[in-house]
């Protein structure tokens, strides 16, 4: 019985213009999007490689370790072809230097505003927005439409159970929607590999996860479509209701939740943060320079009353200690500044995390948000991508500055130049010895943060679970309401 019903559903759907239009639109959208994504990815990789080369060239040009300008880049991620997430919005390069905090700047969109004007549409968007719309188109009249046609009566004039009818209805629609989704995706994957995007084993796992997620998401919308169709009598009404649900869930709720959380939780802007950092830094250096000049004054006071030779001897004897003392003080300042920066960043970060939590909790009322968040987590283009990168870059910065300091100490060169002003000998500018070339082979190399499958899983499990719950709810609701459906 079920087989017959499913067969009828499938035939009914596969032969309908709805199906043809869905298939056509999905294929065009998915293939264009992935093609554009692959092109973008290749450009990004080319840029990334060129930049790395430039960075090494720049380092090679430097003549002493103190003047090395190092910068590291965010590595393009093959998954961004499918789930661009925040890739285009987050900066892609950070300067690595002892005196500056790590900060990703120059997002792809800020460099190429043209692309920001008409944003890139990735597979996630297509599934989230377009496929959910098609799911509604497939289901809004699934039950009440058959009632209006009279086919429902006709079918139930036979010994057909409501359950099997519903199951076959679902199966038919499900296959009718999943096919136009899966076939272009599989072709797109083939195109992606053929076009030379390196997809690792982990990426394949992510892709399967993403496909599974998409199927869950579409299933949810089929569920809600059937539900609404089974609680209304007229297909025109269910269509409108579903459209309202779609607009609310897909377009409005996610945006509104973010805006609401922005109102609820205040977060300082980066400009404010930086101004605070800078104020502290300046105050700290001022304090340092006044203490150091006090120290110098004290030292010269100690020498008061000595003649020139005694003074020289005194000085020679203590010079090393003094230097060390001054150096330690300077290092302490740097340490304090770094600590303070970290503290300030942490405070802001905590506020931001709170804001995110509020926003995402609100947004997750809509499965569209769950889908999006999970997709980004799977792909590694999620909201934590920035902090993940900045964290790992900070680690690298520490290694790098330690290394350059060690190298500098070894070679005895300093950064820049030294100006000596002496009332006797006047001004002397000393550049130290630095006509050497640097051996960069031992320099620490930056490696991008790696997401473990475990962490990805734990981050997206909530959204998978939520989608599952939503699906169960809609299906249970449909089942119950269809069992009591007035067939007339």
């Amino acid at each position: 019985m079920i087989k017959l019903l499913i067969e009828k559903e499938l035939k009914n759907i596969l032969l309908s213009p709805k199906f043809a239009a869905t298939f056509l639109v999905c294929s065009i959208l998915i293939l264009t999007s992935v093609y554009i994504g692959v092109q973008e990815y290749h450009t990004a990789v080319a840029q990334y490689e060129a930049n790395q080369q430039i960075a090494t060239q720049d380092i090679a040009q430097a003549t002493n370790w103190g003047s090395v300008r190092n910068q590291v880049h965010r590595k393009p991620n093959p998954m961004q072809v499918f789930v661009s997430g925040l890739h285009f919005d987050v900066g892609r390069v950070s300067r690595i230097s002892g005196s500056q905090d790590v900060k990703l700047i120059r997002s792809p969109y800020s460099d190429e505003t043209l692309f920001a004007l008409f944003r890139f549409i990735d597979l996630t968007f297509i599934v989230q927005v377009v496929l959910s719309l098609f799911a509604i188109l497939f289901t809004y009249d699934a039950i009440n439409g058959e009632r209006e046609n009279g086919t429902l009566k006709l079918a139930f004039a036979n010994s057909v159970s409501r359950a099997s009818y519903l199951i076959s209805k679902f199966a038919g629609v499900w296959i009718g929607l999943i096919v136009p989704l899966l076939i272009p995706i599989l072709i797109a994957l083939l195109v992606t590999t053929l076009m030379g995007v390196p997809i690792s084993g982990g990426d394949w796992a992510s892709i399967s996860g993403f496909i599974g997620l998409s199927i869950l998401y579409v299933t949810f919308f089929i569920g809600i479509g059937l539900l609404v169709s089974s609680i209304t009598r007229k297909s025109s009404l269910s269509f409108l209701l579903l459209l309202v649900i779609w607009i609310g869930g897909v377009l409005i709720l996610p945006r509104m939740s973010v805006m609401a959380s922005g109102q609820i939780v205040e977060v300082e802007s980066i400009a404010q943060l930086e101004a605070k950092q800078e104020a502290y830094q300046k105050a700290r250096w001022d304090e340092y320079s006044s203490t150091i000049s006090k120290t110098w004054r004290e030292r010269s006071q100690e020498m008061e009353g000595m003649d020139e030779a005694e003074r020289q001897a005194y000085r020679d004897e203590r010079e090393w200690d003094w230097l060390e003392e001054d150096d330690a003080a300077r290092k302490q300042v740097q340490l304090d500044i770094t600590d303070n920066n970290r503290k300030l960043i942490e405070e802001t970060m905590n506020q931001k995390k709170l804001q995110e939590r509020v926003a995402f909790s609100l947004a997750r009322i809509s499965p569209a948000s769950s889908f999006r968040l999970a997709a980004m987590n799977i792909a590694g283009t999620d909201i934590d991508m920035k902090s993940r990168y900045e964290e790992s870059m900070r680690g690298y910065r520490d290694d790098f500055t330690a290394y350059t300091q060690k190298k500098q100490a070894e070679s005895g060169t300093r950064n820049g130049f030294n100006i000596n002003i002496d009332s006797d000998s006047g001004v002397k500018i000393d550049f130290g010895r630095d006509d050497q070339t640097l051996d960069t082979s031992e320099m620490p190399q930056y490696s991008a943060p790696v997401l473990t499958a475990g962490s990805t899983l734990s981050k997206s499990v909530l959204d998978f679970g939520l989608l599952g719950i939503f699906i169960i709810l809609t299906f249970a609701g449909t089942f119950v309401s269809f069992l009591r459906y007035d067939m007339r």
Partner: protein
Amino acid sequence: MFKLIFIKELKEILQSSRFTISFAVCSLLIILSFFMGAQNYLSGKAQYEAAKQENYNQIAANTEWMSVNHSIMLPPQPLMALVTGISNDIGRDIEVRGRGELSAQNTRFNDEPIFAIFRFMDLEFIFGVILSLFAIIFAYDAINGEKVSGTLKLCFSNSVSRASFIAGKLAGSFVGLSIALIIPLLIGCALLPVLGVNLSSDEWLRLGIILISGLAYFGLFLALTIGISAMTNKPSNSFLIGLVVWIFAVLITPRASVLISGRMVEVPNVDEITSEKNRYRFQLFADDRPKMADFSVPEGTEPHLVMQEFSKFMNELSEERARKTEIFEEKINEQYINKKRQQERLALSLSRISPTSVFSLATTELAGTSLGLQNRYMDSAQDYQQVYNDFMTEKTGSGGMTGFRMIIRSSDDSGEEPETIDASELPEFEFQKATLSSAANRSLIDLGLLILFNVVFFGGAFFAFLKYDLR
């Protein structure tokens, strides 16, 4: 006859549940987007003021103008919040130095990626994406629905001309739905001053044109859909066709055009250019080093005179370097900018096939958030740099502090704290918005195209119906 059909159409729309539900949703959306925009603007403004104050405090704590670190910020504007355009994608903060190339950093979406995930719900989005979809939902069965229900036959069993019927239909549905949109739009506008967002008369005018072009955009989708309805026999088919057209116009064409222009016009890598500039600066400094090493003053000169001499010497060198750098950068930028402009022009021309891009371009241009925003901001910043340079030169004797800053503290034994500077002397940065006339000028082509699309689609619907099979 026209009037009769017009009024019937109006009544029919207003009495349908389709209208009631969509009207409720649209009103909610529109008012919400105004509300969110206003809130967004206000919190952005508060942030801006706070950052500005922080910057001021930080400057005021200095004892010498030499050591000032000054940043300027892009001031938020009400229209920016209502039509975001690229305003969230460009750097907002610029650290100003007297000489040298400025760079804007901290884009909103980079700083607050949470907003980038789901993006904002601005007027451009509401009109461009949602209301155009609503237009399709409203009108997909305008003609063929009447055919299916038989009312078309009944109407034309009377002495009714096709022309007056379709004209009444087009006008009736447009006016009916526009009124439904105008009400929440006006409420939204009224909400702005209530929430504390005060627009200048210039901005009201811009907003007015934006809303009118929004209605025109809505109208063209309406006419397009009625046209589709007048070329098909089944409402389900016209809805599907409308949807496909919508997907292409709203989602695909704008992006595809950018992609195509990206393929056709090769723009040099930004990072390469930056690195080239860096290398040049580095080289200039290296060239100056022997000169610096040779610096000497006659023996026995007073130390503070030595210092004066030395900073004058260093300043001269750095001025010279800054001049050379500027020339070099200008040359290298010009080529880059030309290529970029060419790419933009091509992309925008291609994208204008779609009314959605035309609408986006027109509104962002009027709101001042189109591609030109970045250039205008940088131009304003450069003008300010000049002012700042003059100011600093007056204060410190040197404005060009490219990569080198020397602070000399003469320490006397008094141990007294040196006095801080008066930061209020610093000239204010003023962002030069595009004037209304220039914005109107630049959006003229898009506004014109919008009208043209309207004419074509209304005309198309009209003529399609003249040939429609009424049976």
